[in-house]
């Protein structure tokens, strides 16, 4: 007997759950969204604004995909969840019964209660609707202020620069994204931001936003009383779970919808995953709320199994993430900037100050990699961390990890030299460049 699986939200989490449930079962799958008719890549909205891609291009699947895979898309807004009757109500008046319900409603941009935050020309950037609003808010303007660093902050700055709009960026911390990036990398990105002529103001907070007679923003006042004129303000001080829907539904929530390690809520057959879910018990070294594309996808994969009867814990393995700060790519694997007791950092930065390799390790083993402007292989780095390779064993094999295009200058030898110079008496040498095949398919590959 096939069940009705209802998924609220067609972002990466909802869609991944739908696809994997389809692979494993013949259940009826419904995906509801009021944001867009078809799944699109949220992280790619910036490329539409910058004119790299059309909206059509950021849809990961052709429109025919959904019908072919028998996944029903409903372009409507859920107004209410009734967990007793196992029904959801839609704005257009329909009521749909479910056997299992997955809530994947994502986030909303934080509005921190600034005076004037609802003025015209003040907005966050998360949804497709936000992008459309941005299009009209930034038409023919000259100057913008971004409030908050972080990933969306720098992406929004890059977007505005592409339209030749001057950008001032207000960051509360003393370094760009310094709660995540180690000191040196944070400085590198701060320098890079300024090279792009973004006016980066560190240790600066917005106090209020001032509007003109038409209710349109005209300036921002910082906490030190400085006025900065602008015609647009981007609010990028993080995002919070979008949980309005579950209030009054009996589903428990705190900041996000509370779930256990199986992504189950307090109510049977109701699950939550992705940005909107909050783990009652966070996994070691991870946050209760994970607001990353990759974690949303991995949560959905685990959840799909549970929904199909194969109860599976969310256990994502070694942490990874990536981003791009203007022209500098960023990749991280494992534990970086976490102040692990006994951790040591081996760091190399090129002369131009726009590429770096950082390896975090303990006396026992390597625990993290942080790359700026250099690409490393996830599979190799994760294997080294998982199998607790020592720092010297990693250094000897380091070129296996390099994933930069052919002919790119490689910096592995520089890093090893640095290790040797910092550790007198050590003489680690770069092992002969071993074939990739050895690193991926040798006999220990079974132990993943």
């Amino acid at each position: 007997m096939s069940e009705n699986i209802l998924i609220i939200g067609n972002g990466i989490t909802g869609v991944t759950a739908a696809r994997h449930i389809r692979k494993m079962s013949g259940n009826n799958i419904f995906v509801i969204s009021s944001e867009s008719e078809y799944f699109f890549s949220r992280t790619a909205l910036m490329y539409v604004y910058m004119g790299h891609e059309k909206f059509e291009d950021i849809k990961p699947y052709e429109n025919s995909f959904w019908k072919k895979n028998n996944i029903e898309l409903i372009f409507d807004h859920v107004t209410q969840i009734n967990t007793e009757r196992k029904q959801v109500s839609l704005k257009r008046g329909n009521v749909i019964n479910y056997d299992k319900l997955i809530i994947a409603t994502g986030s909303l941009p934080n509005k921190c209660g600034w005076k004037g935050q609802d003025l015209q020309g003040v907005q966050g950037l998360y949804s497709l609707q936000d992008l459309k609003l941005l299009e009209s808010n930034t038409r023919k303007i000259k100057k913008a202020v971004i409030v908050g660093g972080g990933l969306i902050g720098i992406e929004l700055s890059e977007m505005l620069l592409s339209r030749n709009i001057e950008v001032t960026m207000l960051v509360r911390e003393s370094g760009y994204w310094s709660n995540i990036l180690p000191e040196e990398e944070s400085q590198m990105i701060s320098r890079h931001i300024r090279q792009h002529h973004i006016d980066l103001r560190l240790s600066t907070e917005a106090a209020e936003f001032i509007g003109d007679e038409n209710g349109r923003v005209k300036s921002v006042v910082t906490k030190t009383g400085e006025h900065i004129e602008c015609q647009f303000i981007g609010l990028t001080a993080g995002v919070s779970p979008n949980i309005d829907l579950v209030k009054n539904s009996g589903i428990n929530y705190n900041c996000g919808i509370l779930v256990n390690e199986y992504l189950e809520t307090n109510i049977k057959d109701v699950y939550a995953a992705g940005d909107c879910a909050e783990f009652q018990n966070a996994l070691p070294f991870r946050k209760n709320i994970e607001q990353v594309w990759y974690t949303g996808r991995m949560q959905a994969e685990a959840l799909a199994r549970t929904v199909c009867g194969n109860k599976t814990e969310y256990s994502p393995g070694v942490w990874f993430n990536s981003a791009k700060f203007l022209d500098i790519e960023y990749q991280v694997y494992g534990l970086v900037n976490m102040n692990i007791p006994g951790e040591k950092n081996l760091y190399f930065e090129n002369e131009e100050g726009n590429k770096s390799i950082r390896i975090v390790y303990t006396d026992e083993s390597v625990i993290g990699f942080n790359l700026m402007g250099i690409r490393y292989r996830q599979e190799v780095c994760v294997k080294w961390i998982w199998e607790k390779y020592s720092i010297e064993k990693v250094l000897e094999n380091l070129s296996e990890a390099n994933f930069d295009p052919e002919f790119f200058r490689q910096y592995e030898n520089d890093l090893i030299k640095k290790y040797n110079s910092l550790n007198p008496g050590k003489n680690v040498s770069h092992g002969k460049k071993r074939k990739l095949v050895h690193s991926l398919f040798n006999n220990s590959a079974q132990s993943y």
Partner: protein
Amino acid sequence: MTQNILNIDPPSGNNFTALKKTGLAMFSVGMLFFLISFTSVTEFSPLLFFTLSIVLPSAGALIFFFAQLKSSLPGVKKNGIQFMSATNRGLIGWTTAVFLTGMYILIYWFPELLENLIRIFDPLSFALNGNPSNQWFLYGTLYTIAVLVMGVRMLIHNRHSKYQIIRTLSVMFVQLTLAYLIPMFIQNGFFFSYFWPLKQEYLFPSSYEYLTASGGIGMFMFFWAAVMSFIATPVLTYFYGKRWYCSWVCGCGALAETLGDPYRHNSDKSLTSWKIERWMVHSVLVVIIVITALLWIDNANENFIFGEFVHSANKWYGFFISAMFAGVIGVGFYPLMGSRVWCRFGCPMAAILGILQKYFSRFRITVNGGQCISCGNCSTFCEMGIDVKSYAQRGQNVIRASCVGCGICSEVCPRGVLRLENGPPKDRFELNKEYLR
């Protein structure tokens, strides 16, 4: 503290700098003179009109590209490409398409209408090979200038990527030497950079007779053509994939990778177009293999068996495929269908290389774990219309017959997910382990 060695102009609300304006003005005036050079006014001074209608716009374009150096840091340069009339099938795009298509039609079938334009190339032609210019000299020169000037643009736009720099220098060098200067100096105009079946006649019996008649050097040329087609092609493709030719050596590729670069996103990515592509490109391959075989059979039997039929089939192939498809449509439709229409749907050489690449090659585009965010940049900028992200988001290596290995997908990927690699053929089709996806 490290030094910042890179400096760019600040955004001023308008990055259309004076230098860019100068370059654009020179280019526009030059193109106007190019049109004027269709008239007999060129008789006044061919050299002057060559300077005004060829050198001036080229210099203008170069100045414009160099001005971009000052207004941006090294990195992916795709801002606004979907908005601009020239690159987004707008009025300028259509005008460019009509212009390019028209030029091809005139060069191939109505050279008499180009007489005045051809004459302005006389000074250069005399200087290079002592002969007056003709439509083919005009064509070769314009083609080479396009590759060189737009190659400089490619170098500037991709200056952060050593792969793109070396690859672009390679196509510029091959076009200038093997496909332009050297054929001009050797009497029979032989191109060392084109092979059967792209240059189908090189392995026809008629070429064999014609080339070998000119003695040792001709013998070598025929030998070269045969070795390149039957030995070098499979061997090089085994080790490096199709790219050793299509995006590093081939003249059609050279133009696509330089003049065609601003239009690469206009290639169709749908599953339907992939289907059409496979049918078309392999049909052309079958046709040219059959024609070549029949010509040889006929030749061995003194034109007894197929007679006029195979010769007229060859003529029609020359008209429809080599001239109409490869030339008029292949280049003329750049602004409308992307830069690789011919390479993708028609080139029989690409078909052979593709089959080899798919089944007998170490080449693949590796996907880095589970890092794909489905942003679509790789697919958008794939000139061959491969939906790269459909592989990347599944964690599946990209192994496609049509991939020419230009490396742009890897470059525009904002998460470092794609890498062009040569490795053991075993396991190259494997999916990533599930935890990484």
